[in-house]
């Protein structure tokens, strides 16, 4: 079980807000700390991983918990 240091509730937000808020929230963490991101935007299943790949952050997991219910764990790497 990965330890979560901060949770970002980005539910009911649509593109591009989940990524913009994730970026802000991650920057507030220390290196190696983990951000949990909750979203309802189906586009975030593609966008959050694209954002982590581009910025060199670590995507620990991307889960679809149910219809329009997504959870991501991202570790700050830089």
């Amino acid at each position, binding site marked *: 079980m990965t330890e979560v240091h901060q949770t970002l509730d980005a539910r*009911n*937000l*649509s*593109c*591009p*807000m989940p*990524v*913009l808020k*994730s*970026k*802000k929230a991650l920057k507030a963490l220390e290196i190696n700390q983990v951000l949990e991101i909750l979203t309802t935007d189906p586009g975030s299943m593609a966008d959050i991983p694209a*954002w982590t790949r*581009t*910025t*060199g952050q670590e995507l620990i997991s991307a889960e679809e918990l149910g219809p329009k219910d997504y959870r991501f764990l991202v570790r700050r790497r*830089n």
Partner: protein
Amino acid sequence: MTESISQSITLPSEEKPKRMAIIASAGTLDAAYTPVILASTAAAMDMEVAIFFTFYGLNLIHKKKSKKLKVSPIANPAAPMPVPNIIGMIPGMTGMATWMMNRWMKKANVIKFLELRDVCLESGVRMIGCQMTMDVMGIKEEELIDGCELGGAASFLEFAKDADITLFM
């Protein structure tokens, strides 16, 4: 081993950030979203971004006009309320299409254009107003929002020549 560690530590700072250059030339509400959505997201993806606002695109950084951007139902079969052009000409139809578009966006929880533009400014997106267009349209510098710069074709090209992504909107 030591080398790979030092590489991974120094890489982010040594690597040149990706760069995106956008020309925003349209001044309607529907066209306003694309540049600010892409610019704010690119900034969140650690890219350097500049938007060059030219011709009608200047509306998007005009203090007053940017608060009342509209969607035209004329010659716009994809408008929120597609109507024949002859109907679209009736007074009030532009207001109606604009109202419908705003309602669409709200229903889909899309953040407002003005808020996205603020995010762009906060995250360091450079907003450049086209000086020549301002002269043509009689727009003064103080009519533009705070935080933007003025420049011409050369200013945009100087930034865009090293861009990884260049878009005309």
